[in-house]
């Protein structure tokens, strides 16, 4: 890997989580998209971070207990 490539990878890694959060501008996003198509290391890293964040995102999936449903129903009945 050339010094130029290494610098490019470091720059992409620096922006990667903001990229995955959708928090970078369109020009930078397009640049990173291109780099990820060409660089196996950065692509693997992006896939790993995506898989991990998918697992974290699933932590919000819970079933509200029946006791809570009853409580909220009673609360809303009183409105």
């Amino acid at each position, binding site marked *: 890997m050339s010094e130029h490539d290494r610098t490019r990878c470091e720059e992409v890694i620096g922006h990667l989580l903001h990229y995955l959060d959708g928090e970078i501008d369109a020009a930078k996003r397009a640049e990173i998209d291109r780099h990820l198509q060409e660089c196996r290391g950065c692509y693997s890293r992006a896939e*790993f971070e995506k898989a991990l964040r998918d697992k974290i995102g699933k*932590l*919000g*999936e819970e*079933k509200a*207990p029946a006791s*809570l*449903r009853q409580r*909220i129903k009673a609360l*809303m009945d009183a409105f």
Partner: protein
Amino acid sequence: MNDEDDRVFFRAEVEPLLDRLYGAALRLTRNPADAEDLVSETVAKAWANFGQLADRQAFPKWLFRILANTFISDCRHAQREPCKTFAVLDGEQPFSLFERLHQPFLLWWSNPEQELVNKLLREDIERALDSLPVDFRTVVILVEINGYSYAEVAELLGVPIGTVRSRLSRARSRLQRALWTQAQAAGLLTGAGDEAVVHE
């Protein structure tokens, strides 16, 4: 005064959101009873302030905002258990699970970092998230679970957007460090750094 149309709309919107509200509340409070209290308080506040909601399509996000604000406000006032450990800003080094596990010279079909993600159970991730200080945990929950933008989180928490970025970055680093420690303790890994191996 709210009329019958408002009441019908409110009920129809709240009921399908209860699972998600409870999920977010449980991650924030780390306790089922406190999570139920938080959801209940959120719904009561939402109804009391329903007249202030201009855009009804924004109802779900508005409701989650009330939930997060209520949690943060309760934390500031009560100093209850999940709120005690505010993050200490120290000189800790960033930690990346990928950098610990990735082995670039392995054959292309071998992927230890992906293998570890596949082996992580829901309870492993829960434990790692629950171990974070409350201000770090809150930004991860708002961004990664509730899908808020950095700007929305900044507004909600009343902090600059740069603070959201830095908290998120530190939170993710700590979360990955916690997962690494747990994976080692569970015997999923041996070695460290470049020599780490993911076990079946």
